[in-house]
């Protein structure tokens, strides 16, 4: 009798736990795989690493699914959904936003597009991954040409071209992504260095030497990346070179500008002027912590990195200044457009026309551009904004008040001198080769630059 009772009780409790485990959770934040830089030092930066689900809009309207890999982007889109619903009461929408970690999201997107099911209506695609996604062209993506017509003339053309293929546009970006030099002016002043005097890389290196001596090696002038190609892009753009060979050409990584930059970086590492970026690059938790620890006094990064300061390093307010990047020689191009997120509308959407209209409203209209600047701090593609002094001189704006210099002043001073590196089918391969193998070989392992680049070239030629 006792045994029967015990076994019955166990069966019931097993059943109960089984059923309760199957209960669904809706719209709450789910925590997915944790992907972070492995540092113990930062807290409160979970937004970037988990899977988050949020919603916005009017649930009586058209339902859309939107994915991104940056939580801040989704927050921006959510605010634009509310504005759209206000201005278009007959075309209301309701959007469910999911933020996945970077690699996860792109893998999921490609898989769902390839298999024909499960893709979201709208999706952010990082510019480096765009060639993989646009490979499906009309089969996978809805052309945005019609939705773009009202805004086309005021957008920077090259930023629209990056996301086009065979005459049709498939993606819309947030920004130009102009690269500038971020200087911790407060820190440099402590050691008697005036960053405004730095015009060339030779000046930069000299300042680095001075910093090393004055700080006894405790502060590095900069950190060089093994997990990102920004430094290489800057070098190439300054000299007008492009390792992808453009849309029609062949890839070639054995360029003079790349060799010069890598050799220079090797020298800096050897002399203790620079360190290797912890976890590979500065746009990552370990990078933010390194900046907060005042281990590095400067680094080149696109203007969109300003939002990282506000979100992850608010304590640095008033310390940092923006300036033009140092060049090899006078006359070199002064900046390069780096990064970008082209948002696409997939053919699997039930109402792609409405999705496209909302998208162009959010990212191209004057109101959308204004919000992009104010919420995300991006150098928008709509050039009308660059000269609108009500925006550019608005010192109450959180980005303008954070830094010692005005970002629009820098932007307007490099306006005609922003180089562009093409993003083509071979770009992901070059990027992968550089970030996994070549940069590590050259910077971590001290390998000969020419040899490492030759090996990279051989590996890349295999893929063409």
């Amino acid at each position, binding site marked *: 009798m006792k045994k029967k009772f015990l076994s019955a009780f166990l069966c019931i409790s097993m059943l109960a736990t089984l059923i309760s485990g199957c209960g669904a959770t809706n719209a709450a934040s789910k925590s997915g795989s944790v992907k972070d830089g492995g540092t113990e030092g930062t807290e409160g930066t979970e937004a970037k690493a988990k899977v988050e689900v949020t919603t916005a809009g009017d649930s009586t309207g058209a339902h859309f699914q939107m994915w991104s890999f940056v939580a801040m982007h989704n927050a921006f889109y959510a605010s634009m959904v509310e504005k759209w619903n206000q201005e278009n009461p007959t075309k209301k929408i309701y959007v469910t936003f999911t933020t996945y970690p970077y690699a996860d999201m792109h893998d999921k997107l490609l898989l769902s597009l390839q298999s024909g099911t499960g893709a979201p209506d709208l999706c952010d695609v990082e510019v480096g991954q765009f060639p993989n996604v646009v490979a499906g062209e009309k*089969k*996978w993506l809805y052309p945005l040409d019609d939705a773009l017509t009202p805004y086309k003339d005021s957008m920077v053309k090259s930023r629209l071209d990056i996301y086009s293929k065979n005459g049709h546009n498939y993606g819309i970006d947030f920004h130009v992504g102009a690269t500038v030099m971020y200087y911790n002016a407060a820190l440099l002043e402590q050691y008697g260095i005036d960053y405004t005097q730095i015009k060339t890389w030779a000046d930069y290196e000299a300042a680095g030497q001075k910093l090393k001596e004055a700080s006894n090696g405790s502060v590095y002038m900069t950190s060089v990346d093994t997990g990102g190609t920004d430094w290489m892009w800057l070098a190439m753009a300054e000299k007008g070179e492009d390792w992808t060979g453009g849309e029609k050409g062949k890839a070639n990584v054995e360029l003079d500008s790349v060799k010069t930059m890598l050799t220079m970086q090797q020298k800096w590492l050897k002399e203790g002027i620079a360190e290797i970026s912890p976890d590979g690059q500065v746009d990552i938790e370990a990078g933010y912590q390194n900046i907060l620890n005042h281990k590095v006094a400067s680094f080149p990064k696109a203007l969109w990195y300003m939002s990282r300061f506000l979100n992850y390093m608010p304590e640095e307010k008033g310390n940092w200044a923006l300036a033009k990047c140092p060049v090899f020689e006078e006359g070199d191009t002064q900046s390069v457009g780096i990064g970008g997120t082209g948002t696409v509308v997939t053919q699997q959407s039930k109402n792609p026309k409405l999705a496209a209209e909302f998208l162009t409203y959010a990212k191209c209209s004057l109101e959308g551009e204004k919000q992009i600047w104010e919420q995300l701090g991006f150098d928008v593609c709509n050039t009308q904004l660059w000269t609108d002094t009500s925006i550019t001189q608005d010192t109450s704006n959180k980005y303008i008040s954070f830094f010692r210099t005005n970002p629009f002043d820098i932007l307007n001073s490099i306006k005609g001198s922003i180089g562009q590196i093409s993003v083509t089918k071979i770009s992901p391969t070059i990027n992968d080769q550089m970030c996994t193998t070549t940069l590590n*070989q050259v910077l971590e392992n001290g390998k000969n630059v020419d040899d490492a680049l030759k090996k990279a070239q051989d590996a890349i030629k295999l893929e063409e």
Partner: protein
Amino acid sequence: MKRKKSILYSKKAAPYIFILPFLLSFAFFWIYPLFSTIKMSFQDIQPAQTTFVGFDNYKKLLIDPAFHIAVGNSFEYMLLTCVILIPIPMLFAVLMDSNLVKAKGVWKAILYLPALTSVVISGTLFRLMFSEYDTGQMNILMHMFGFASIKWLKFKATGLGALLILACWRWTGVNMLYFLSGLKGIDKSLYESAEIDGANAWNKFRFITFPLLKPTSIYVLTISVYAGLAMFLESFMLWAGNSSPNNIGLTIVGYLYKRGIEKNQLGYASAIGLVLLVIALIINMVQLVLNGTFKKEAD
């Protein structure tokens, strides 16, 4: 009505009906993908169209440096796990079976527990433990002994070491249980007669335990060879993806995932999968033949 009933009760048809669910799922999830993969490995699969390319994918594999690195890594991992994860669990099993260990249940539980954890979570935790910063667990240990911090996961030797520690932590218990069950099958009277003949512990192990554990050892070796070659999750979690510096953590299946899912080159990935199958088959066939598994019972 009577005819249908008779089929269900028919003694001839019953076995086939019972194995039908298994057969269906086997055909659907194993046989069909196998043939589909073979077919795909001879194709170039683009989003818009699929073209037949013959042996191009295989020719590319022959000159692909990343693939060679992946094969090298998988082989090293397989060999090292076989060398470490067969003798040591065997030793533990023999200890568990003897009178030298008290509270056997506790020890068995402790050794087996890691196998129950999720690879994803334990991999992530090991990655944090082996992080390059001064605050990483292993670096704190280094400092205790007076050494400087090491960038564990950036170099081949230390990275492989971390991977092996993860593997041993996880699989020792499982292999130990295999050997324990193998030991249960050995007749105790053999040991008694050996003692009467004056054998010490080492002799007993060498002449009775070890030979009679042969079937279990062959089984563990076979699955270790395959598991070592096909290892993916441990290294994927340890380096948070497929981009380990200089590809030190890239394995064959990792490379398959990279090509197939990340780069959407399913034809090429299928070729990689087939090459893995062939390599594992060859090694295991050779190993099984050498171990005399296919010899007829001695007359």
